[in-house]
């Protein structure tokens, strides 16, 4: 069973994606979709170094909402900064953030969240995965930023992935 379906979550996601793309739930779509959902995870299993274990769907939903809200807020802030501030007046720079999250999949999701949020971009992770180097467009308060990332994102990701 583990051989056949190495990552059930990925298989379900692929099947849903296929149904959405084909815009139908006919038998043909389902059969082909199921075949693809079984084939690709089995073929690509070696490309995924760590097995994905995700739990707590409620925490996931809450994290998703937080991320969307935070992105809307950062969009407005960055747009405002671009329109009203001169480039050299922006207090941009690098911030070091200590991390407790160890799961590589969780770290990957964190990297995507902070990079996709306007105003913050992932620059480097220390070799031991313990410290993150983040570039920030407009630093208002370093402590507030560290708290935001650790309390909003990292804690939820720890609950989901560890």
């Amino acid at each position, binding site marked *: 069973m583990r051989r056949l379906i190495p990552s059930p979550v990925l298989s379900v996601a692929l099947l849903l*994606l296929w149904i*959405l*793309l084909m*815009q139908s739930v006919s038998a043909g779509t389902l059969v082909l979709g199921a075949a693809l959902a079984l084939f690709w995870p089995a073929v690509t299993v070696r490309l995924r170094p760590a097995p994905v274990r995700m739990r707590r769907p409620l925490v996931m939903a809450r994290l998703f909402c937080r991320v969307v809200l935070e*992105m*809307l807020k950062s*969009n407005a802030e*960055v*747009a405002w900064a*671009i*329109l009203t501030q001169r*480039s*050299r007046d*922006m207090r*941009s720079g*690098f*911030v*070091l*953030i*200590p991390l407790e999250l160890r799961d590589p999949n969780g770290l990957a999701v964190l*990297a*995507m969240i902070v*990079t*996709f*949020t*306007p*105003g*913050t*971009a*992932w*620059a*480097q*992770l*220390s*070799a*031991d995965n*313990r*410290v*993150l*180097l983040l*570039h920030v*467009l407009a630093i208002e308060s*370093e*402590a*507030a*930023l*560290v*708290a935001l990332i*650790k309390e909003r994102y990292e804690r939820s990701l720890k609950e989901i992935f560890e």
Partner: protein
Amino acid sequence: MNGGTPLWVEALTALLVVVGALAALIGSFGVLRLRSFFRRVHAPTLGATVGTWGFTLATAVQVSYERGQLYLHALLITVFIALTAPVTTIFLMRAAVFRGRLRGEEIPVPGTEEPSRG
């Protein structure tokens, strides 16, 4: 449009398109305006987030109404962009950090000193 679409659908579509287009425009303007690579890298995310969301939501609203059934697969574009755009940004950041250090710019190295505690 065809006269059959109610005003609120058209208004909602228009609002979403305008908000999305504004975000993309301001993001592009930022690429032009910001002075260093590390600042510029933040600007395109406006188009990738609210820009894309605005256009895909507008498509979903308008087409769902016209066809009388949920038309959600435009929203998949937001998922694909969310999965791919950060990867490119991180690659560019890594290259810029590497080159910046070679040039002697002061970029902290995580893990070599005591991290700043919040």
